[in-house]
């Protein structure tokens, strides 16, 4: 199988802040295409962990797709699954860390789903087989996701970090790219990392109109 070579370019810029440094990066392909919704986590050596605020997160069902396609949350947060389509969805996951099912009529369901254990939760819809979504539940003290331009930002104290990039289409063991990074006030080390990405993978989008199948 042919595989595209994707290019993960990490540009690190450090600012001199006594308590917090800003680490930024951009995830792009060799063609310069940004990689959207990739998850970046940073785990340092410091024993003091930042206090994380817990909020209610949302994954919508819109035009027969999960929106967001990938959502990173920290363990203990809850996600609510509204349905913006005018048809039913039947969302489920059989991931060992968080298996559940929820029947979605139109609008807002009564209860959110709580994700207490770290792990990757793959979402499906029992009515629309093509739908696929991911909840990345992490214990990492620092995490973020790339925006539409592939850019991300983390505010971190100086430390040695294990930096993890995850995207479901990364063609590597467990779909991750891991690197060690020493973060201090003096160092400015732009990083470049090349990874391959699956060329044929599930997009989670409805079948093309010319498949002759009504998409309902």
């Amino acid at each position, binding site marked *: *199988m*042919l595989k595209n070579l994707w290019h993960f370019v990490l540009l690190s810029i450090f600012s001199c802040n006594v308590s917090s440094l800003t680490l930024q990066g951009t995830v792009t392909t060799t063609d310069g295409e940004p990689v959207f919704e990739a998850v970046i986590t940073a785990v340092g050596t410091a024993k003091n962990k930042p206090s994380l605020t817990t909020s209610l997160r949302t994954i919508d069902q819109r035009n027969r797709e999960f929106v967001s396609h990938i959502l990173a949350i920290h363990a203990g947060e809850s996600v609510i699954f509204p349905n913006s389509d*005018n*048809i*039913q969805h*039947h969302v*489920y*996951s*059989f*991931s060992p860390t968080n*298996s*559940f*099912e929820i*029947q979605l*009529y139109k609008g807002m369901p009564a209860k959110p789903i709580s994700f207490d254990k770290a792990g*990757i939760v*793959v979402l499906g819809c*029992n*009515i629309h*087989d*093509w739908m*696929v979504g991911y909840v990345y539940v992490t214990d990492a003290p620092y995490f973020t996701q790339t925006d539409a331009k592939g850019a991300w930002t983390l505010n971190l104290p100086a430390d040695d970090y294990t930096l993890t990039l995850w995207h479901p289409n990364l063609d590597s063991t467990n779909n991750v790219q891991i690197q060690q990074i020493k973060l201090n006030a003096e160092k400015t080390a732009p990083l470049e990392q090349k990874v391959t990405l699956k*060329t*044929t*993978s*599930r*997009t989670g989008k409805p079948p*093309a*109109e*010319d*498949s*002759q*199948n*009504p998409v*309902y």
Partner: protein
Amino acid sequence: MKTKIWFVIVTSAIFFASALHADDFHNIQVHGEADFRYIHTNSDSQNNTDFSKFWDGGANQDLFHVNEAALTLQGRLNWSWTGSITAKYGYDAKNPVDISEAVLFFKPVSTSPWRINARLGSFFAPISLENTGTAWTSPYTLTSSAINSWVGEELKTFGGEATVGYHLENGDHVDFFGAGFGNNDTAGTLLAFRGWRLHDYEATISDGFKLPNPTHIQNIFPKQALTTQPFTEVDGRAGYYAGFNMERPDVLKFRVLYYDNRANPTIVENGQYGWHTRFGSAGLKFVLPFELTFIEQSMLGNTQMGGLVGTHAAVDVNFWAHSFLLSKKIIEGHRFSVRYDIFGTHKNDELVQNPNEENGSAWTVNYNWFFLKHHQLNFEVTTTNSNVTMRSLQNINPTQNETLWQIGYRVFF
């Protein structure tokens, strides 16, 4: 009778459930297609109609007709059950309008890697990897492969099918399926008496086909009717099929199936013989880079009819076919497909007056354009070379070259 029974069961279920759940579900979905064709055929012989490889082959002619019009009614009964019924008009059909499929699907949600689902009613066995569109149309070609043309003509499951699947989180899954069915005891008649054909006619549930060279067949088998009814129960004995499917969604699909209708070949009822038909079928679909799709299908089987004549049944014929399709989406909505078919039958029986031997191959080239969401324009040519010994009974050269040119306009909704 069968039409009425399935129509009543499935439509009643759909409408009854929709009335119960009117507030919860937008239940009834109506889909369909209409298919208009201009066709031009060429053949070496102008009298090669009975044993032509095409539906309207055997003569040089131009035809314009409504090839097919189908309406599918789908309804969700609850979170686990759906129903679907398809009625169609088919060009040259025995009945102007008839049911082609009527099926209830059971698909409960699973929060474990194991999943079960089931189908109940009349439906196609999981053999074709090409006919995935509304009303069993193919997004690749107008003319089906030799294998899928025969599946459309003579195979239909009247019964139940259950599937147990094991899914991985990356979407990969393997499924084991099995089905029990009735009303398919005459499957094999057309392969033995006529041979393979390339077309896109799908038989409806009370359909019938005129036999080729029927007087000759009746001279040998006086009890055989002039028309074969593909979905008939002759001996009251259920048939089965079983197989497995391995799939990586949007990338790869591999499917194997074994079919045995367990028909008793010595029983004749209302002019219909039981044909004991067994075959193995395998299919492979690859989605390749550069918007390319490759589909291969193979079938190998045997059919037997009648009492022993010497050491074999009166008719004892092996059949086999392979198809290789390569399709490329050029740009959105534009698709170019090429398929090569190779097929044949071989006679094991000792009945010399019934020479069921053939060897043939065909190329099909299709370009289609899907536009304005619902419309599709097709340009297609199929050319075939075949040697059919039964043609000699009609004083036609057994080897014939035939070509079918088609312009097809289809609308889907």
